[in-house]
């Protein structure tokens, strides 16, 4: 905060206010309690002063004049009137003008009832129009994308949507066409508004010009009920308002949270609720009887599941049971299931990652960056996947800053990403080469070697990166965002690269990006071999948890790959699938299929059917988001609330309840009987979560969430005044819980029973860098195998044929065709050209796709997309233990 001396003094409606130089009149006036009506202004975008609704009277040496409050900054001594006669006349005039051509179809408009044009007309506008002529007409509505429809008659040309598309998303797919009265928002001929972020334009449209196809005519705003929740469709954890009508979720809106999503959502998150009503929903527990799944009662299903587990344990020991998945669970459910596995069954065979993630030790032990850290950082290194595809809103936060030059980006990527063209340096990557290339960069910065000497890539990019990063010494402004560059490669190389960066760049912070839902919560809750809840290792916390839980596994267990092997070799007898689909998600589909067929029984705990359901012996139907509650831990380590809005579908139960009842059927007692009990136990026991007041973690007092580890963080309790022009459609504050007194602050880091907290104290150290194991057996593989062969790289898209997307009709259309990215020179040597349909063959199978020439793809590689077509890319992968996979491309 600037010192008081830097403040200037202005008068708003006769009231003196202190302001920072450069602050906009509209912001200062609002602080002074004078709301200035507006349409085009949006605090998350640059002002343009177009709608003229925010005109206020400003003093100047040449007398008072009307100025747009959204565009003009305050100056010392400025006298501002927001309600003088001339201001009122201008406001009334602008509204009368806006309504000249605006159809008064409010009764059939989605926006009616939550419409800023309605509201501000009522407050500032003329009672009626003096126009007698016909209004302007356009054909309407016209679909501009799968999810968005445009009504040009309702449009008031505020340019919020066009600016969002251009300025924030960087996809100028909609713009104004025509001029004057004939100005209309339009898409370019033959180019729909195919943006992952199109839904945001619906949310910020101040009228009903842009409507969301799935929501059209579904509800009236005054019938909506709302809770604040967290989107769980990726690990960013955007804050959402879940709105329902007649016990059915009908809309998600982004909530403006400084630290996470700035009110933006991706379309997958915004419309993901549609899967709740999918025909593939699992509504009842069932058992497989003579090949068919037959609905049964919960007690029958649980009894059967308990019996299978007990038998296997008795006959083959706890090692014969494995738990796969867990990213779909809330923190509380993950904890409950970890306790079932580790305390009740006493096996450490748990893994929330499906062989396509990042080693949990690496994820949990490096100094973690927040999204805010990344946005404030002067330099960011992005390694691996295209952020737009795996963490869309993180991309959305970073992109404008990179485009404006506020962040200098260095990228390591196997192909052209959404950020490549904005990067200061884009270092091409081949899986297996990250470590080498990172070390080459470090050597180049140190000056010990010439840039990129001897690693066989364009040294200019290393030079650019060297220049951008500058020094190794002190880098509090450097954030490294990383993910695995190819879904089918092991992570030894990634680990080597990241550790090299961590050792060399002092004070840099790291952000691991795992795509899947609450994966960070699941890892924190111990759903990973060798981990126990609260970011502690088996070794460090074994005795502690033995004391608290009564029992822990004898030895550390297996990860997904080993479990699937063990299952395929009939060493594992029971696999519990905690909301996961190993057949679709594990890199080696063949192994996954073999494992699921060989294993004696598969217990399937999920909300939606998926490809692994065919192998399920017992189905335990779990509730989905908005039917369940709990907490979520995002990629920053920020805990926020998942809230329940509608009753659970069918007989589905929340996952934690299934865990409690299964433990009960196994003759054990988890020691808790309610969600609140679990939350309290986590706050009491799990070291990184210790001190989290359970009431706090589960209510919405803390807009911004709570950063882990809890004891190291202080959170100010605050509730921002909802800006009706930002929170369009958000139901007013009283529905979201009582507003806090201003200035109220608290330390969530104080557990209510301080003595107890001291008892457990900090005796157990959290997982650290020394816990990262180096796997010397699987070295990154780099050598070429054959002359014609290309190294296969598999990347992800936001919309793939994953369970959630596949369960929504709207999303299925958004899954892209298989693309085959290759370097132009490789293509010409193979005699294939851009746009051509080619086939890619592995040892046993073939897939086909369309060629995209991409200069950033290594000449020895080919980049395909994971899980988008019927033909499975993973059929090209013969053995997932091998790091490198080779394919041939033919026309």
């Amino acid at each position, binding site marked *: 905060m600037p010192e008081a001396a830097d403040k200037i003094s202005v008068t708003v409606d006769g009231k003196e206010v202190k302001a920072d130089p450069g602050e906009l009149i509209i912001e200062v006036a609002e602080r002074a309690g004078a709301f200035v009506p507006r349409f085009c202004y949006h605090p998350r975008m640059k002002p*343009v*002063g*177009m*709608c*003229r*609704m925010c*005109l206020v009277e400003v003093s100047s040496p040449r007398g008072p*004049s*009307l100025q*747009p409050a959204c*565009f*003009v900054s305050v100056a010392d001594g400025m006298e501002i009137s927001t309600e003088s006669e*001339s201001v009122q*006349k*201008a406001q009334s*005039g*602008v509204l*009368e*003008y*806006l309504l*000249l*051509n605006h159809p008064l179809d409010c009764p059939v408009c989605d926006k009616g009832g939550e419409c800023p044009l309605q509201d501000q007309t009522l407050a500032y506008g003329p009672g009626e129009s*003096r*126009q007698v*002529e016909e209004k302007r007409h356009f054909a309407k509505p016209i679909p501009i994308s799968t999810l968005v429809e445009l009504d040009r008659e309702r449009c*008031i*040309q505020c340019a919020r949507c066009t600016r969002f598309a251009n300025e924030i998303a960087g996809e100028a797919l909609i*713009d*104004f066409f*025509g*001029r*004057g*009265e*004939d*100005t209309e928002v339009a898409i370019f001929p033959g180019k729909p508004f195919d943006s992952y972020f199109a839904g945001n334009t619906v949310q910020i449209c101040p009228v009903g010009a842009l409507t969301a196809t799935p929501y059209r005519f579904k509800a009236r705003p005054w019938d909506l009920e709302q809770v604040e929740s967290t989107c769980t469709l990726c690990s960013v954890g955007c804050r959402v308002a879940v709105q329902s009508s007649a016990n059915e979720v009908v809309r998600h809106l982004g909530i403006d949270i400084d630290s996470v999503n700035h009110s933006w959502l991706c379309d997958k998150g915004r419309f993901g609720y549609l899967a709740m009503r999918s025909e593939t929903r699992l509504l009842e527990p069932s058992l497989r009887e003579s090949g068919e799944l037959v609905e049964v009662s919960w007690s029958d299903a649980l009894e059967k599941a308990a019996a299978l587990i007990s038998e296997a344990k008795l006959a083959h020991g706890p090692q014969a049971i494995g738990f796969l998945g867990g990213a779909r669970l809330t923190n509380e459910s993950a904890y409950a299931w970890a306790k079932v596995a580790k305390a009740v069954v006493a096996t450490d065979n748990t893994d929330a990652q499906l062989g396509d993630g990042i080693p949990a030790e690496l994820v949990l032990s490096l100094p973690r960056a927040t999204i805010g850290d990344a946005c404030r950082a002067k330099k960011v290194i992005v390694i691996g996947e295209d952020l737009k595809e795996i963490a869309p809103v993180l991309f959305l936060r970073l992109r404008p800053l990179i485009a404006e030059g506020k962040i200098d980006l260095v990228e390591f990527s196997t192909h052209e990403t959404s950020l490549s063209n904005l990067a200061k340096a884009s270092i091409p990557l081949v899986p297996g080469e990250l470590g080498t290339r990172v070390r080459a960069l470090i050597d180049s910065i140190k000056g010990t070697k010439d840039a990129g000497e001897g690693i066989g890539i364009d040294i200019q990019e290393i030079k650019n990166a060297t220049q951008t990063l500058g020094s190794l010494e002190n880098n509090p402004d450097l954030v490294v965002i990383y993910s695995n560059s190819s879904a089918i490669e092991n992570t030894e190389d990634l680990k080597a690269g990241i550790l090299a960066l961590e050792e060399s760049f002092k004070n840099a912070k790291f952000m691991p990006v795992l795509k899947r839902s609450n994966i960070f919560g699941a890892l924190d809750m111990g759903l990973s071999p060798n981990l126990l809840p609260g970011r502690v290792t088996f070794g460090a916390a074994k005795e502690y948890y033995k004391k608290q839980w009564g029992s822990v596994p004898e030895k550390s267990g297996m990860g997904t790959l080993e479990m699937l092997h063990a299952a395929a070799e009939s060493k594992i007898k029971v696999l519990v699938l905690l909301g996961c689909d190993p057949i679709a998600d594990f890199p080696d589909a063949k192994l996954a299929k073999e494992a699921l067929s060989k294993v004696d029984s598969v217990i399937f705990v999920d909300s939606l059917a998926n490809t692994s359901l065919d192998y399920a012996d017992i189905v335990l139907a779990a509730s989905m988001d908005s039917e369940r509650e709990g907490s979520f831990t995002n990629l920053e380590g920020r805990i926020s609330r998942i809230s329940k809005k509608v009753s659970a579908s069918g007989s589905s139960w929340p996952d934690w309840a299934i865990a409690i009842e299964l433990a009960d059927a196994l003759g054990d007692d988890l020691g808790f009987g309610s969600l609140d009990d679990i939350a309290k136990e986590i706050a009491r026991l799990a070291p990184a979560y210790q001190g989290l007041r359970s009431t706090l973690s589960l209510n919405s007092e803390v807009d911004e969430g709570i950063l882990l580890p809890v004891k190291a963080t202080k959170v100010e309790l605050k509730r921002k005044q909802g800006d009706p022009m930002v929170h369009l459609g958000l139901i007013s504050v009283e529905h979201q819980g009582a507003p806090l007194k201003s200035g109220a602050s608290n330390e969530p880091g104080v557990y209510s029973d301080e003595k107890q907290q001291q008892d457990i104290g900090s005796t157990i150290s959290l997982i650290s860098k020394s816990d990262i194991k180096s796997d010397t057996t699987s070295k990154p593989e780099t050598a070429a195998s054959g002359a014609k062969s290309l190294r296969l790289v598999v990347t992800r898209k936001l919309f793939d044929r994953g369970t959630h997307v596949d369960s929504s009709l709207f999303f299925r259309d958004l899954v892209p065709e298989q693309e085959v990215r290759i370097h132009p020179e490789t293509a010409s040597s193979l005699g294939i050209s851009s746009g051509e349909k080619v086939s890619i063959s592995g040892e046993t199978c073939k897939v086909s796709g369309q060629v995209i020439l991409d200069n950033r793809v290594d000449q020895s590689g080919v980049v395909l997309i994971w899980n988008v077509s019927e033909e499975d890319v993973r059929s090209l992968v013969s053995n997932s233990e091998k790091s490198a996979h080779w394919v041939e491309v033919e026309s």
Partner: protein
Amino acid sequence: MAVTTFDPIVSRRLRIPNSHTLEVYLANGGYVGLRKALSMNPEDVAAEVMTASLLGRGGAGFPAGRKWAMLKNDLVKYLVINGDESEPATFKDHELVEKDPHQIIEGTIIAAYALGVTQAFIFCRGEFALGFERLQSALNEAYEYGALGRDIFGSGFSLDMVIHPGAGAYICGEETALLESLEGKRGYPRIKPPFFPAVIGLYGKPTVVNNMETVSNLPWIVLNGGAAFAALGEGSSAGTRLFALSGHVNRPGWYEIEMAKTTFKDLIEHPELGGGIRKGRSLKAFIPGGVSAPWFGPNEMDMPLSQDAVAQAGSMLGSGSVVVMDETTCPVRAAWRITKFFSRESCGQCTPCREGSGWIERTMRRIEFGAGRMEDIDLVLDACDNISPGLSWPPKQTTICVLGPSIPSSVNSAITMFRDDFISHIKDGKCNYA
């Protein structure tokens, strides 16, 4: 007041056959001014222009020398010549670009030299098909002649010049919209601040935007000195100026006239100028400076063509086009037609201009065609007031650029001066002039 005699400045070659060619241009004193300028210090060239008190000829009438002095120093800075003359009844630049394109180019080079600019752009109205073709040929000739490109006439000064055709929008004559258009964007006027392109202009760099006629004066000013220019005219209205006279006069056309020394009456009635109102009819009203200017009546006929005098009387010389309306003119129709133009040409950015212009146009049309209501008169005035609060002069505005407050000028003038005509349209349900 008599019509003064003087050697014409900008129009001196306009009547010579093939005046647009380099050959004729050189034979008539072409590029002599440039050679002289290049032998001087750039600062001295700028000083002459300051002394000349050359007012901008685009419409706002801001002194060119002062505009130059505001140019922020930067490694990269630009000079842009505004030739997007698109207002109804304005055709002086049209004449200059078709008949004397080399004079524009020479003036631009002199300005660039004085400003230390090495890249200039001429934004020429796209509909000037012949003018644009001639400007392009002249540019090629100038390069070939050595007046453009590297090391001009061996002086060490280099300049590149690009000509760019407008795409049909009147608003691109507004200097910031012109810069946006030149950058390849929609022709939206930029919001202020920044207030002056001289600080943040084309591609974010300091930029001087001068009108075509303004720079056409420069070769003469350099050759004859700023003082000689300032000796013509009177006070701040120095020099001569090209006026476009149109409407109900016997001799419509362009006339170069010494400023402030000639009255509107002279311009309209002098046998060598307007030659009087057609068919001996009497004057109803005239527009002193383009269709965005408030109208004058017979009482203002004796006013000199001086920027200050006209401004004091509540209008402007603007772009230098004088439109004469005789007694047979329907003021409702005239104001409606002007409004229709502005409505079509509003860029659509600001609500009052985008929506207001169309509504005012439709209401005026209704009155003209006999479907008006008595309350429409005050309605139109109030709608105008919401674009230009107070309907005062100089106008206030609720819009980003001055196209907004240009709309009410004619409507307000017509209603104020000829309210009876509006009433008779409404009462009779028809236009009695038709």
